[in-house]
């Protein structure tokens, strides 16, 4: 294995551990906590805004003062971010659909994966149906699956 690959895999494992620990410590993994945050007109619990605030307080300066100034990552790989800057219908409708699912059960992908360790069937059901949703989206984007009201996607673009 090349040095860059060893670094890529070990950093990913460490980053995954930190990410999961952050999800558990901040209680992002608790759907009741998430719904409490989303319930702005009721008994609002603003805690989860602090999760995002804490994450941005660490990530934003490291990105702008260190990462952005580099030509490539420390292991020599290219940075994977997209150069796409277009606000289009796919972006907004996708985000609206995701938000509806997030509000419905209080799970988003990160907390669901972290919660696999709880051994709950509910988590398993969420992850399996999420995988089905990912596959259906791929089919739709390739113009192979009609949606209700919308029909087949006509303009096919490479995602």
């Amino acid at each position: 294995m090349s040095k860059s690959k060893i670094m890529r895999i070990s950093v990913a494992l460490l980053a995954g551990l930190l990410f999961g620990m952050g999800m558990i410590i901040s209680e992002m993994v608790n759907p009741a906590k998430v719904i409490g945050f989303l319930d702005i007109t009721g008994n609002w619990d603003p805690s989860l805004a602090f999760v995002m605030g804490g994450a941005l307080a660490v990530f934003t300066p490291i990105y702008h003062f260190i990462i952005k100034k580099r030509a490539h990552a420390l292991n020599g790989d290219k940075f994977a971010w997209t150069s796409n800057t277009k606000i289009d219908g796919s972006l907004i409708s996708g985000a609206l659909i995701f938000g509806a699912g997030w509000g419905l059960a209080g799970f988003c992908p990160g907390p669901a994966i972290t919660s696999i360790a709880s051994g709950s069937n509910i988590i398993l059901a969420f992850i399996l149906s999420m995988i089905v949703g990912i596959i259906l989206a791929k089919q739709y984007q390739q113009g192979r699956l009609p949606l209700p009201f919308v029909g087949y996607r006509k303009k096919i673009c490479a995602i």
Partner: protein
Amino acid sequence: MENFTPWSALAGGALIGLSAALLMLFSGKIAGISGIIAGLLTPQKHESSWRAAFLTGMIASFLIVAPWGFTLPDTGSESIVVVSLAGLLVGFGTRLGNGCTSGHGIIGLGRFSKRSIFATIAFMGSAFMVVFIRNQFGGL
């Protein structure tokens, strides 16, 4: 506001931000969880092992924090029908919109990406709306 826990939320958030920064600085990858899962479903050369390692780390993270008394919440009382529908919407929506709470809400916002700012407003607004409507029907 009796459930308000700002300090653990800030500390946990800081760990998430550190994780995203390390992954990007050392190997140029984006810690967007929906993108990592979707990437494993359509594997490309050199892009699967790090994704698998990241997810393994996430699942194993519970073993590290458990000795300090942290627990994973009991989700046994949730409705499996509602949760499955939610999973479908989350999977479909994150692919169509190219990201979730981590990819858009943390990395995208941190990079001041215009796409991520719009996406975050859209999914937050939509989630607020769904919770509001459900509350009108007594938790449905």
